[in-house]
């Protein structure tokens, strides 16, 4: 039979150890990382007018892996920083990967001015005038990027400016070489 005082001393770690574990795991996680419920699911369909006045829809991606990049001309410096990374990605994977830009709460004039200044792109940019595509993708703010495989499944999402290492991780998730 255990003495009451011994039971008390044994009960203490039973309370403190789970508390310590919760504190440790909580401190170890990055509060800025917000998991997307879209990862592992089919990409939300979209269709709309592009910056050059054409039409583009997710159906046009069928069979190709894609990178859907949400951006805006007011998103400085993050969108400026990632722009060369996107240009490099498009140049290295032309034909194997489809890039799509989507404006977030921006005007066509603002976006065209951005591209004039930082470099024209070869991929379509949807105007997303009513913000519906941003809502469908759960976009928090530009820049934000989704990697979608050839079957149309979202394999990863990155919040913040793209870097070469983020792109390498995204391409690896798509089964493509960096």
């Amino acid at each position, binding site marked *: 039979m255990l003495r009451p005082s011994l039971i*008390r001393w044994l009960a203490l770690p039973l309370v403190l150890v789970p508390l310590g574990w919760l504190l440790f795991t909580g401190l170890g996680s990055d509060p800025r990382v917000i998991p*997307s*419920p*879209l990862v592992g699911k089919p990409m939300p369909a979209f269709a709309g007018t592009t910056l050059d006045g054409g039409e583009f829809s997710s159906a046009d991606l069928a069979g190709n892996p894609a990178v859907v990049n949400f951006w805006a001309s007011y998103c400085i410096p993050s969108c400026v920083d990632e722009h060369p990374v996107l240009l490099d990605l498009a140049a290295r994977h032309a034909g194997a990967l489809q890039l799509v830009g989507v404006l*977030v709460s921006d005007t066509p004039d603002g976006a065209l001015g951005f591209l004039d200044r930082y470099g024209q792109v070869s991929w379509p940019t949807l105007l997303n005038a009513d*913000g519906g595509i*941003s*809502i469908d993708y*759960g976009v*928090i703010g530009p820049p934000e990027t989704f990697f979608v495989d050839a079957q149309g499944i979202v394999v990863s999402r990155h919040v913040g400016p793209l870097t070469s290492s983020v792109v390498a991780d995204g391409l690896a998730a798509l089964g493509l070489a960096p």
Partner: protein
Amino acid sequence: MRRLALPIAIAALLALAGLAVVEVLRPSAAPTRTEQARQIAADLRCPDCQALSVAESETAAAAAIRRQIVEQLAAGQSPAQIRAYFVARYGEWILLAPPSPFAWWIPPVAVLLGISVFAWWVGGRRAAAAPDAPLSAGLREQIRDEVEQLDA
């Protein structure tokens, strides 16, 4: 005092649970569609703001969400279905309040439980450290008799 700690803690827990049940089951008048839209917007976090709801924010993203809420209510969707629609896209992060109202009661219940456990633990230590009660005259005599028998 120590004897009362557990009953007081249990009574406090029961009172909190009763309040929670009353709050959940309390009937209220059916809100209009505008009120429903405002309430849903107030429950959702503005995606590109700091600590503001969709109802409070003037950003384009918040305006787009408000527009979708109104459209979905007009299409016959319930507030729960509309919240689920946004959670499916943004995750539970988009909700300013936890999905279950009972979640609000977890912190006070945890604090009460912690206080109860601490009081029990400290009370036990004090009881163990308390000096022994003085021996009664009868017991003193009995001990003396037993010692004398041992010495004999």
